[in-house]
């Protein structure tokens, strides 16, 4: 038998403008549990998508050697045939279908006429026994909890004769008890000789199950740590994840934080819009001064976007409670219009999904949040609109032949500038930027940072939500850390380190 069941050699994968993976190497021995760790955007999921054929052969460079042979997976189906099955973070089950139907979706047990339902449910039952799931195979997915749904996914993988199981954040939506059960299940599979790769942010879990830990950072492999004894120090892993030098990737600025508080939020709580009993933001308080950049750190799903959107005219959630003061005055913002008029702006995280209208021109997008400023008596002055758009194009150095260009034709960085222009044109006092530099190249990032510095120099307040810790450390005056809807730490940027932020998050997980 070969020494490694899987070897990925010099994998490089580029997206337009971004190198997501840069010469990544990964070696997995048969029968081990191999953990993949790294910050958001380090390339973990991308690497697994390359392995599973989601990104087909040809869209990356490098070799995948599996069981001693070089593989060229073109579709998910190709890799599944070899026994490689990936279970994604967002479960891919259809709520309206039964457990059995889901398990054999696309892989139906066929009888002589159509589907053999007896066989389907019998086999489903067998696989469910293997994962210790005590449900009827005819139960609908929507009627069982997330923990059990995760087990269904694993049973589904087993039904495909899995040899190498990949789990992307399997426990992110599970509670303590379900997580532990799942991990023990993995350990028992290991005894039977199955190999698994697990991606997780929860380092205590990784220390518990993993034999080897590979650390990715910025699309490169940093190291592979041995954890045969299952007693690794979490700080050791964190050092690998974040240990990088801060060079002058951030423009310098004079820190002139005024005493005046621009916005203050007290005891803010938000409930999930559909599952009303679930608290997405739990009793959060924070403030931002004029002339200050405040950072919000946390993992994905920490509730930062939900917090921002609920403040921005109740755009998210139900049962919102708490106090909001802008420039010392109590405000109750019932809708987005109120928020804009109160001097708030929220630059959305997902610029294509809910920030810009891609098929409309730069000019139309720029004026959208405050169209009345270029209108007289409800009639749009197109000439004035174009002049405004030209003005911002010059100011933000947006690269485009004309402001009539459809936004969809611009690069990510330039789209982000148009989105910023849109909200700068709304002339806010407090700007909330949600992941303002996601998916754009280093040069454009630098320019976005410069724009932020200009804004605070004018005495405005900026809140920056980011998953990239170096960016927060480089840009902010103060950093708040959120986890699972709660505010878990606040520190001046001068005292903050990535280790401190990470351990604040991890410690709150343990509680």
């Amino acid at each position, binding site marked *: 038998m070969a020494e490694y069941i899987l070897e990925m050699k010099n994998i490089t994968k580029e997206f337009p403008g971004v190198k997501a993976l840069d010469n990544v190497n990964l070696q997995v021995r048969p029968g081990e549990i191999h953990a993949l760790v790294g910050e958001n955007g380090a390339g973990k999921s991308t690497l697994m998508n390359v392995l599973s054929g989601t990104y087909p052969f040809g869209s990356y460079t490098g070799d995948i050697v599996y069981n001693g042979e070089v593989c060229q997976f073109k579709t998910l189906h190709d890799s599944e045939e070899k026994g490689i099955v990936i279970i994604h973070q967002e479960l891919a089950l259809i709520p309206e279908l039964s457990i059995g139907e889901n398990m054999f979706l696309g892989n139906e047990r066929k009888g002589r006429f159509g589907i053999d339902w007896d066989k389907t449910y019998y086999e489903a039952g067998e696989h469910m026994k293997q994962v210790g799931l005590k449900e009827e195979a005819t139960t609908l997915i929507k009627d069982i909890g997330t923990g059990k749904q995760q087990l269904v996914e694993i049973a589904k993988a087993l039904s495909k004769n899995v040899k190498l199981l990949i789990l992307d954040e399997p426990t992110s939506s599970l509670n303590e008890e379900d997580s532990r059960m799942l991990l023990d299940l993995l350990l028992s599979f290991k005894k039977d000789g199955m190999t698994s790769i697990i991606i997780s942010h929860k380092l205590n879990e990784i220390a518990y199950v993993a034999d080897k830990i590979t650390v990715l950072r910025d699309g490169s492999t940093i190291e592979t740590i041995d954890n045969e004894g299952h007693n690794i120090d979490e700080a050791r892993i964190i050092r690998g994840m974040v240990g990088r030098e801060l060079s002058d990737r951030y423009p310098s600025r004079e820190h002139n934080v005024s005493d005046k508080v621009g916005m203050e939020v007290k005891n803010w709580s938000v409930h999930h819009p559909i599952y009303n009993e679930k608290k997405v933001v739990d009793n959060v308080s924070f403030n931002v001064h004029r002339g200050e950049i405040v950072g919000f750190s946390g993992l994905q799903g920490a509730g930062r976007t939900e917090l921002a959107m609920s403040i*921005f*005219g109740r*755009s998210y959630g139900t049962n919102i409670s708490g106090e909001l003061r802008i420039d010392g005055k109590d405000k109750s913002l019932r*809708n*987005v*219009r109120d*928020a*804009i008029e109160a001097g708030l702006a*929220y630059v*959305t995280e997902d610029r294509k*999904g*809910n*920030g*810009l*209208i*891609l*098929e*409309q021109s730069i000019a*139309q997008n720029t004026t*959208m*949040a405050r*169209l*009345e400023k270029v*209108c007289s008596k*409800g*009639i*749009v002055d*197109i*000439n004035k609109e*174009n*002049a405004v758009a030209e003005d911002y194009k010059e100011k933000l150095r947006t690269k485009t032949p004309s402001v009539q260009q*459809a936004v*969809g*034709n611009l690069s990510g960085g330039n789209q982000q500038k148009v989105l910023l222009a*849109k909200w700068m044109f709304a002339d806010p006092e407090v700007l909330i930027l949600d992941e303002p530099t996601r998916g754009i190249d280093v040069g454009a990032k630098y320019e976005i940072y410069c724009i932020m510095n200009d804004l605070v120099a004018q005495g405005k307040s900026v809140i920056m939500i980011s998953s990239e810790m170096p960016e927060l450390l480089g840009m902010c005056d103060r950093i708040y850390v959120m986890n699972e809807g709660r505010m878990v730490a606040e520190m001046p940027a001068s005292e903050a380190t990535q280790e401190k932020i990470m351990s604040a998050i991890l410690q709150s997980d343990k509680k």
Partner: protein
Amino acid sequence: MNTKTFIKKYTMVIALVVVFIFFSMWTEGRLLYPQNLSNLLIQNAYVLVLACGMLMCILTGGNIDLSVGSTVCLVGAVAAQMLTKHNMDPLIVICLCLVFACLIGMWQGFWIGYIHIPPFICTLAGMFLFRGFGRAILDSKTIAIPQTEGSVGKRFLDIFASYIEVPGVDTDKVKWSAFILGIIIAAALVVITVLNRIKKAKKGYKQASALSQFAKVIVIDFLVLAYTWKIAHYKGIPVMAIWVLAVVLIYAFITSKTAFGRYFYAVGGNEKATKLSGIDTKKVYFLAYTSMSLLAGLSGLLVAARVGSVNGDTGNSFEMDAIGSCFIGGASAYGGSGTVGGVVVGAILLGVINQGMSIKGLDNNWQYVVKGAVLLIAVIFDVVSNKKTGKAG
């Protein structure tokens, strides 16, 4: 502008010209008879009016209103009953009918905009509901609007279906008033273009090239003059044309110039982004469907006046003509793009095909086949050409 972008921008106009020339030749010029040209407009008046309203719905995201044909019937039935049974003054009838149509629209707009009932289903229900009410009001009969001189019915018909005649100017042979109106419109277009250019030049804004702008004006002017010259040799300007022109101009103005109109494009382009820009997206849906039914009501009056009677099948499948015109005229099936000008071209294209085939005496059934083919080709073209330019879709 090179040939390629020109063809892309004016595809449907070119198609209209080709189709028009084809039918003119095929009918040995009969399509060009003054009477036929005049009827082309009158017979398609309802499509033009409905298509303007339908465009607003489609802009919000490819949503359509299936109930307009039934609304036409219901409002027409109400009007006919008021005129015949109750002998009401036509002006009051018109006002009441339009208010009633507006209420129908608010009913649908409320469910669609504020309760989020899918438009397809809500208006499908409306299609049954209003057709049923309409037939009930008509008591399954055909109600003719009385045409005797001096009756309320006659006055009602005059408001919609008569021809303008200016004593002293118009003769029995030639209605000069029509041609004079044509000259006024043509001159106004030139003046507006020149003034606009002067204003832009003063403020130093970017100009479109003078050649293309004036070429466009000259082509439109020529068509206006030719058309009015022709109808001057028939009965002159139909009043219906004035109604249609008013609706088209108002909607063209709203969609291209006002902030309010801009919101419809924004909602169709990206609803979430629009909401997060502080625009009340629910209200946009509400108003789209309210305006649609208002225009359906107006169409009901126009149709009642043109035909002179209303029955249970009045307005049948009108919604399909309106929807077809919008998509042929380049409105995106996913919402967010489309112009009133395009829709007018689409409606006329359909109208020319109809008219040409009727003149030629072709079977009604074949008209459906041709209409279907044209619609499919237009939308395929739209989707494929958008894919190539990398737009969303």
